[in-house]
């Protein structure tokens, strides 16, 4: 926890420093607001960094006004599951890029339900088909959202 807080403070300091350096190259009017935000951010992040290094360890890891993550799963398992869901999210975005939204929707629902949720083939196919139908009716027929074609379709000239 302490190591993570330390890294987050370093991240904030890096963001503040970067924005100060970049803002120096802009017109005064454009630079004024980012500078007047970055400088106090740099100061506060540095104070927090010093508090993390030299202060007493925090009694609770969570923010006072924010949600808590569950703590009843073993850390190794947490890491594995976080990486797992992150991989699914990245795969979803990659599929949208390659195939476009309309094709990705049923494919993703099917793949996730079949291989992650261990749902039967038939139920996965039915769920994918229903989702595709709802998606098509709502977003394409009713609201007329223009979805970009996927890279593969563009490449094939479809």
């Amino acid at each position: 926890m302490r190591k993570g807080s330390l890294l987050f403070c370093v991240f904030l300091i890096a963001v503040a420093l970067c924005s100060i350096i970049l803002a120096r190259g802009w017109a005064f009017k454009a630079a004024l607001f980012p500078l007047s935000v970055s400088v106090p951010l740099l100061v506060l992040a540095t104070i927090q960094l010093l508090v993390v290094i030299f202060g007493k360890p925090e009694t609770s890891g969570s923010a006072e006004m924010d949600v808590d993550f569950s703590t009843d799963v073993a850390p190794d398992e947490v890491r594995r599951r976080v990486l797992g869901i992150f991989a699914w999210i990245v795969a979803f975005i990659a599929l949208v890029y390659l195939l476009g939204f309309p094709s990705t929707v049923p494919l993703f629902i099917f793949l996730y339900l079949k291989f992650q949720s261990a749902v039967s083939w038939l139920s996965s196919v039915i769920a994918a088909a229903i989702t595709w139908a709802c998606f098509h009716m709502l977003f394409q027929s009713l609201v007329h959202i223009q979805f970009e074609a996927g890279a593969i379709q563009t490449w094939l000239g479809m």
Partner: protein
Amino acid sequence: MFDAFIDGLFLVLQWKAFSLMLVGMSLGFCVGLLPGIGGAATLALMLPFVFKMSPAEAFAFLLGMHSVAATTGDITSVLFGVPGEAISAATVVDGYPMAKRGEAGRALGAALMSSLMGALIGAVALALAIPIVRPLVLTFGSPELFMLSLIGISCITSLSGSSTRAQIKGFAMGLLGLLVSTVGQDRQSGSLRFDMGLMYLWDGLDFVPVLVGIFAIPEIIDLAVRGTSIAGDRPPENLSRGVLEGVKDTFRHFWLVFRCSVIGVFVGILPGAGGGVAQWMAYAHAVQSAKNSKEREGFGKGDVRGVLGPGAANNSKEGGELIPTVAFGVPGSGAMAILLSGFLIMGIMPGPDMLTKHLTITFSMVWTLAIANVITVLLCLLVLDQLAKLTYVRGSLIIPFILLLVFVGSYTANGQIADLIVTLIFGLLSYVMVLFGWPRPPFVLGFVLGKVIETYLFISMNRYGFAWLAHPIVMLLTAVLVAVIAYPYVQQRRQRLARGASA
């Protein structure tokens, strides 16, 4: 006046206007549930359909749709931690933890009933305020709006927690939010800031992909990690009793709901502030209303007052936004600007005529706001039991559908793959923030208010130099600002003294 008030009701109750209002409400219901597709975008899409309608029918249709979207936006916020509308983000902070605790029914009951109260108070404010609001709006120039935005950002003191460390973290997150809001082309000089050579960033970061990422992604990751349903392994709550409890909570904390509704109306009246600000100001006010640190501890962990405040403010601001739109033709938000085009399509010029010649139509709007929300909330209360059961469905079955909602919602912001990447980046940032105990609400407040603060500051400086600091209302608002910042510290000191005296 009274005759016009009653005639306004009969206009809405005519079968054609009433049917169109029901159609609009159905659309608004769906739009509210879907993250990303805002009420404003749907208003724009539906505008071409009003050409053949009478003014009363058109406003029943458009307002029925718009006002309901804000109400149902709270449902996905509570059930899945995904804000149905950008203006429903604050409801996630306490609503979703309640759902995780097995109190989804109570949270939904509270959100919907407070929304209804807020909408009714907003409608009453609209009816009462039109004749007297003119001086208020005209005295609020850019310096006053800048000060009001500062009051909004000063709510960080209430959104960060009580300890000094929490305050440092809260302010740092608020500043990070302000910094992120400066991405894109500067409106004053035209310079590109933090654009990383990407044309996508020239317009700045859109609210929807950022807010959806900030609130939804960490919850999805947590749901996947837990491997249970949203409500965990708890025995199912008695849903009907839970919903009823939520409804009772609204009346138990009626004055909080009332005060938050008034905040919503006031913010709605002022052009440019919008629902994003109203909900967080209301949330901060709910936190400030806690009598001691023990009462404050519950916020962010599932305190029903954190659901009631934003729920009421979201809906009351609809009435507030209509006041300057109807009375002066000054739209308070993007949605109101679109509604203004509806006025012009109908051949109606907003302004003094709305208080004389078209007074009946003005009152029909008041009635539409009230009736549409009453019907929606009553219908929702009937189906809440079924909706709340979703929190007991196995997480791995529900995650792909939530992911779909999240990413389709964020894609609708600009229609680019980059929207999805922005959602992912801010989702990861938010996950790290929660993991290491950095509060997210101050970040969101800074991000929402950043552009408003910068714009009004520059207009004030260009127009008045430093002389605006001496404006009477600015000085009054400065005193309010100091009071808002100092209040949590004074409250803590008072509690320490009281503890010392009792020990």
